């Protein structure tokens, strides 16, 4: 008998516009010791299911029909007191942001002890012993038990949250995006930890996430959801290797992978956006985006069909799966008519583009430094004369040529975004030079004619497409604004140029978009508008700061492909800043990996991502999950936390965590060099001697500061 048996669960939210069918007839089971993954795009009903399991639906949500059977109780209909007995004690939850889930004024240990004692009337001592035990389970030092949440790093807080979820030894632990928002290495550690706990303690777990790779690597079974419907459900390997549903096939195409074999197919996005779900009509929910949809799909809701042993798919045509699988790998299958019209533009743009491009100046960054002063108390500023600085960017050099893409990767806080923003002159550089031809970008004042001329040549695309468009501007006003600022053309010329830019970013037909406001666009469309704004000025360089990190997988691919096309066709140089190494594989010519303000490895994408040399680059690449159930990757365990960038000590920044650290690493700062016979530059003394670094590269070491 399964531990948890969800039968035909339908959940609806009452809204002003009518009932939103957040989940429709969802069925699955969870056996003891099994690990179930739930994947889907945002708004597909994943979190709604989790909330229903715990009886914590928001006040306008209700279970419309169906059952959630757990230990003889239907949780969908259980009263509050019964639910309270089950919540946390039998089924516990690890949510996305531990910062919000932990009480900031109570120590973590007390919070765990309190959770234990609420459910089990026992001695404080026993509860405390249990809390210490769970702390060790998740790999936290028991001496940190009575720390307050703010004293722990984000990753430690997330682990503390898991400790809390395990404190009562529940039957089921549900992770609802437990690692979203964490860095690659931390994400890997936490997923690994969860998997180990699940395997060792033979516990039933659920992992709810949009990250397909995390599910393929960890879970035994997977539930693929779309628009509130279960699209496919079965063993992980079956679902992702022998997919039956067109939606699963589409997700597989769109999900980036750091591995070469997976990369040989290029990314293909799923056109369109998920439906609204307010009083939906009949028909397959995916029909509007499905390349194989026929009339029947729009008229008739398909049932879940058994396609193989313990493997179901919601599609009218399971027998056509061989054809689907074959055709789904072709770009032409998925991309709508409109997209191909753009080809005529590229040939048109290509006419005069190729001329004299060899001599176009590149963007040269040398030994760039950006420091931010640390806020000090009045007393502190009197006692020490020197102000502390965050060395956000500390000696970064590279050359970005037109028509090339350099990827800048690293964990949050490594200075990659600051580097991009400093080059765009949104931040003031502290030292070093940025050159664009004979223009000294670093010395530009914050406004003025030369700055404006520079801005015309270097444009920025921001991370958050929901925030980077002014909500009170229409699409046309947004794109036209930059033209107005630079005094380009009259009203008619500007309008033509706006339409042209919109066509270049595949917002077709452009006339349908000009009058819309940002809130009338999907995330992907907004990001396209932001890109249109950036290219409307015909810049030579673009700086894109995590341009796809907030978009759904099905949309990401389209934006990445678009950026690469623009780079190739308009001969733009792109600096692509990201924490997601998988996406780099698909778009970058070169990759630079940053760690605490310094580039530790820089070289061709292929080399850096498949044969990383620097110990940190190795750890980072090894931490990226791969969406291939057959692949087992070797993890590199890193100790400790990322050091502070406030007045860092001399030596290699990675020395404190490096598994191969040597004495010299703590004294001297290694320069970025290409080792003999190597393909990429590495800043590590494993590859060259400290004596090889010119005096220029060595930072003055104050006497007495040696450890």
């Amino acid at each position, binding site marked *: 008998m399964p531990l948890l048996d969800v039968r035909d669960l339908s959940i609806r939210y009452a809204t002003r516009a009518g009932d939103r069918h957040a989940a429709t007839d969802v069925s699955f089971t969870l056996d003891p010791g099994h690990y179930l993954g739930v994947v889907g795009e945002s708004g597909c009903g994943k979190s709604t299911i989790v909330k229903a399991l715990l009886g914590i639906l928001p006040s306008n949500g209700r279970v419309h029909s169906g059952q959630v059977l757990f230990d003889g109780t239907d949780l969908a209909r259980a009263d509050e007191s019964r639910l309270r007995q089950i919540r946390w004690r039998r089924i516990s939850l690890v949510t996305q942001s531990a910062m919000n889930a932990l009480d900031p004024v109570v120590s973590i240990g007390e919070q765990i002890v309190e959770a234990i004692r609420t459910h089990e009337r026992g001695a404080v001592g026993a509860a405390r012993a249990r809390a210490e035990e769970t702390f060790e389970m998740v790999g936290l030092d028991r001496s940190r038990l009575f720390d307050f949440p703010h004293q722990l790093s984000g990753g430690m807080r997330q682990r503390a949250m898991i400790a809390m979820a395990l404190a009562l030894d529940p039957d089921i632990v549900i992770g609802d995006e437990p690692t979203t928002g964490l860095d690659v290495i931390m994400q890997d550690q936490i997923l690994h930890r969860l998997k180990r706990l699940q395997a060792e303690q033979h516990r039933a777990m659920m992992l709810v996430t949009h990250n397909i790779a995390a599910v393929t690597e960890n879970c035994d079974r997977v539930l693929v959801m779309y628009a509130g419907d279960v699209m496919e459900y079965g063993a992980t390997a079956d679902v992702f290797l022998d997919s039956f549903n067109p939606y699963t096939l589409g997700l597989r195409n769109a999900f980036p992978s750091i591995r070469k074999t997976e990369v040989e197919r290029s990314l293909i996005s799923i056109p369109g956006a998920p439906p609204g779900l307010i009083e939906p009509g009949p028909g397959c929910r995916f029909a509007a985006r499905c390349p194989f949809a026929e009339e029947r799909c729009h008229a008739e809701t398909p049932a879940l069909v058994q396609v193989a042993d313990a493997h179901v798919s919601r599609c009218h045509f399971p027998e056509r799966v061989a054809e689907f699988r074959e055709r789904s790998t072709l770009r032409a299958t998925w991309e709508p008519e409109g997209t191909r019209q753009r080809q005529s533009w590229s040939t*048109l743009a290509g006419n005069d583009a190729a001329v004299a491009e060899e001599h176009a100046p590149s963007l040269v960054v040398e030994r760039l430094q950006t420091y931010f002063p640390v806020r000090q108390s009045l007393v502190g500023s009197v006692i020490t004369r020197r102000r502390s600085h965050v060395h956000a960017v500390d000696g970064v050099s590279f050359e970005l040529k037109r028509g090339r893409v350099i990827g800048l990767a690293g964990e949050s806080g490594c200075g990659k975004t600051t580097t991009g923003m400093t080059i765009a002159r*949104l931040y003031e550089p502290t030292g070093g030079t940025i050159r664009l031809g004979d223009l000294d970008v670093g010395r530009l004042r914050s406004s003025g004619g030369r700055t404006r001329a520079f801005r*015309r040549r270097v444009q*920025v695309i921001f991370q958050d497409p929901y925030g980077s468009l*002014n909500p009170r501007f229409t699409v046309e006003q947004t794109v036209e604004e*930059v033209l107005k600022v630079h005094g380009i053309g009259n009203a008619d010329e500007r309008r033509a140029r706006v339409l042209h830019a919109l066509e270049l970013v595949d917002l077709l037909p452009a006339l349908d978009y000009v009058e819309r406001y940002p809130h009338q666009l999907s995330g992907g469309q907004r990001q396209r508008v932001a890109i249109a704004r950036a290219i409307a000025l015909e810049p030579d360089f673009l700086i894109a700061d995590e341009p796809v990190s907030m978009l759904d997988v099905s949309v990401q691919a389209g934006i990445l492909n678009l950026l690469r096309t623009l780079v190739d066709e308009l001969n733009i140089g792109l600096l692509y800043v990201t924490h997601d190494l998988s996406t780099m594989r698909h778009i970058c010519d070169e990759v630079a990996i940053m760690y605490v303000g310094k580039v530790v490895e820089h070289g061709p994408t292929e080399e850096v991502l498949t044969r990383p040399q620097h110990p940190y680059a190795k750890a980072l690449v090894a931490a990226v999950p791969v969406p291939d159930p057959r692949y087992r990757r070797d993890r590199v365990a890193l100790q400790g936390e990322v050091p502070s960038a406030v007045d860092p000590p001399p030596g290699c920044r990675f020395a404190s965590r490096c598994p191969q650290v040597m004495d010299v690493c703590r004294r001297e700062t290694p320069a970025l060099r290409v080792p003999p016979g190597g393909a990429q530059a590495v800043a590590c003394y494993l590859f060259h001697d400290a004596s090889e670094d010119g005096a220029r590269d060595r930072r003055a070491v104050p006497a007495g500061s040696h450890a």
Partner: protein
Amino acid sequence: MAGEGAGASLAPSTGTGDSVAERVARAAAARPAPGPRRWLMERAAWAAGTLRIAWSDHLAKVGIVMLVLFLLAAGIGPEIRTTPPFESVTLEDGRIAKNLPPSRAYPAGTNRLGQDLLVQLLHGARMAIFVGLLAAGGGAIIGTLVGLTAGYYGRLVDQTLMRVTDVALAIPFLPFALVFLALFGPGLRNIVIILALLFWRSPARVVRSQVLTLKERPYIQAARAGGAGNVRIMFVHLLPNLLPLIFLYVALGIGGAVSAEASVSFLGFGDPLTATWGQILNSAFTAGAMRTAWWWVVFPGLALTLFVTSIYLVSRGYEEAVNPRLRRM
């Protein structure tokens, strides 16, 4: 029209046979040009949307109805009852109709000088709206400029302007108003100036704090990256996003300004030749009629109370409408 970058031409070339450029040109021509009419229509649609949200709140509904009645009274009342407000009316026998309680001919009664109180009340409504709009509007403009400048530039500019605002916030209203009016002469114009001078403080603070959050929004960064200068960012990007908040303060300010004007006028610093509600109350007081002629006191008092209440209720509904969490639902 290609940029000097000699890069890939983004601008559509105009050569013949260039179907795409032609398509764009045709498309551009086919589109209705944006103009003041479209702008007006958009504003009207927005106002209707706001009104619809406000209307769903019952108290706001009451406020809206009351406010519309006041606006009608102020707008067309004096045109219907055309007697000048300070003219003594006479009875049929030629005597001055003084101290008459409410009757069919004089629904609000008359005062000691035989002036028709209903006429004075209607003129008072006009003055109330006039004073309220000028004082609150003027104050909001000053407050917005101060708050926007302080919030946007930050650092020393912010420090200086906010300390000035703090000092201004410490000024008590009545004593300041009395001293000011004693020095510069009583009268409605000076009262409005005082009200505007004292009203800007809280909008300044609120606008500043809103600017502090808005200016960190990515679209402001994006505007800067696009090459927009400070003034452009402040007035083209930030100001439109502040307007709902500013309107809310203007609405709330109208109520405050009207009651403040009434209290100053009641104390005798108003213009005796302008019929405002405070002025009517003042003349009732100086005539010693507060206890004897109830209608002389009750009607202007009631008008004041209801007007300020209706403004408050409407503002409350409006606040709900501009609250981003409740919008677009």
